[in-house]
């Protein structure tokens, strides 16, 4: 574990990346439930930021707030601000579709559309108006390569995505997300439904992707956070208890709740 984190330390700590997301006093309620409390976080470009914490602490809520998917729940209300690339995105005037085009999302359970692999990938480009067959073909290949699943599916692009294994489906979902070339990719426990082997492939992929994309990943698995992330935020009961470089969090946390959690004393 330590070896892994130190490995990364080399390039995660040194780069002085631009801030892509910045939240100020972010609060969120589901009806009466106060799910996020005064969140202040800055998330940096081309890094992997891990969100950890026990079940129900608000991890999913937080990353769904970043692309405003949380608004699909009608009772949600928020206060505070989130700026994405210096634009305040919580304003009702801000077009969520634009935001979501620039911020891709990968979900816990692989959720390909019940369509062919090809159609899954081209779904995004098409809704954004790209019609040219040639361009689409190129996007498909590039995205699938980007999600390192091209070799496995290149001969069966017309087949239904549900024929793929769980791990392949998840990589397909990542590819689908790459197809619209987002800047940020949000991942909500992308490996929790997968077997260890598939998990490993996704983890490698995340390492690969962060050269191009900023990645925010929610995970239950602390080892995973330690392995792949540059920064880690520890959430507890809707609050950010600690946010720091991953190796700091895992070796010398400053809050003893963090320590308790990491050492498995609760959660």
């Amino acid at each position, binding site marked *: 574990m330590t070896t892994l984190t130190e490995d990364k330390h080399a390039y995660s700590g040194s780069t002085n990346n631009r801030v892509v997301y910045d939240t100020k006093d972010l609060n969120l309620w589901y009806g009466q439930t106060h799910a996020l409390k005064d969140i202040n976080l800055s998330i940096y470009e081309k890094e992997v930021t891990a969100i950890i914490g026990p079940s129900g602490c608000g991890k999913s809520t937080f990353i769904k707030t970043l692309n405003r998917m949380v608004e699909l729940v009608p009772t949600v209300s928020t206060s505070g601000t989130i700026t994405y690339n210096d634009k305040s995105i919580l304003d009702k005037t801000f077009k969520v*579709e634009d935001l979501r085009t620039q911020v*891709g999302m990968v*979900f816990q359970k692989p*959720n390909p*559309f*019940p369509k062919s692999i090809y159609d899954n990938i081209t779904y995004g480009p098409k*809704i954004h108006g790209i019609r040219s067959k040639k361009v689409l073909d190129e996007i498909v290949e590039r995205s699938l390569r980007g999600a390192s699943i091209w070799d496995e599916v290149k001969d069966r692009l017309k087949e239904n995505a549900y024929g793929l294994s769980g791990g392949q489906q998840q990589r397909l979902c990542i590819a689908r997300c790459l197809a619209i070339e987002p800047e940020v990719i949000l991942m909500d426990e992308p490996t929790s439904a997968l077997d260890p082997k598939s998990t490993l492939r996704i983890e490698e992929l995340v390492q690969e992707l962060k050269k191009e994309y900023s990645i925010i990943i929610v995970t239950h698995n602390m080892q995973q956070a330690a392995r792949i992330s540059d920064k880690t935020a520890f959430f507890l009961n809707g609050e950010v208890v600690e946010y720091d470089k991953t190796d700091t969090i895992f070796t010398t946390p400053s809050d003893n709740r963090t320590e308790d959690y990491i050492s498995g004393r609760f959660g």
Partner: protein
Amino acid sequence: MKYVDQTLVHKRMNSRVLKNNILKQVFLIATLFGLAVLAILIFRVVTQGIAWIDWNFLTGKLSTFPEKAGIMGAILGTSYLMLIVIPVTLIIGVGTAIYMELYAKKGKLQSFIATNISNLAGVPSIVYGLLGLTIFVRVMDFGNVVLAGGLTLSLLVLPIVIVAAQEAIRAVPGHLSEASYGMGATKWQTVKKIILPAALPGIITGAILAVSRAIGETAPLTVLGIPAFLLPFPEGIFDTFTALPMQIYYWTLDASLVDEYAYLAAATIIVLLVLLFILNAIAVIIRNKFQQRY
């Protein structure tokens, strides 16, 4: 002290178990009763009518002579009716369902529409006939043509389609639309490209059930004033028409005039039932074939 006397319990046990076993058989018989009636009904109709079904009967014109009579006019009339019922109910039914499930805010309006739909489902078909007579035949002045009949039947089966479509839409897993929204798709794009295609088998099944209900409806048509005797085949939605169930009705009524009309009615019933079985088989096939794995 024991209140529960095991020997007594033991004694009663036999009769209790026996009662259970006897009633089990009674329940089975009750279940089979309905099926027995169904069997008798079909047997009766088939034995009376089958001999009268031939090519001329299926493709010929109506006639006062039983041997010459054909039901092509009624078949076409019924088909034209369905040509109206299918698109009208699909558009209105699916539109309403989309609105109710995906756009309407939970609240008074939504629950008002929902209550209204479930009430409409219970309104007797004959009342729809009067509605059609007043609105389509008289006020809109279509006359007793296919269009008026089709619209009347459409309103009648609309609740069936709405409810089926609502259920189909509700059954589309939320993670599919989430994925779509996550790509920056707008609501309508998501509805059009993800939700509707996934809900389609359910919607089609509902539509077929609605159509098979509409095909057999007689009461509203009797109110609309469908001609009892009509030779020419309808050629469009503005023609007067007769329909299979109406033909059955008139032949049943006139059996006292010409005995053979009863057999013609039975033969027409066979045609109608075969049509219904085919439709239902299609519904079942669609349901089985297009059931998506999510």
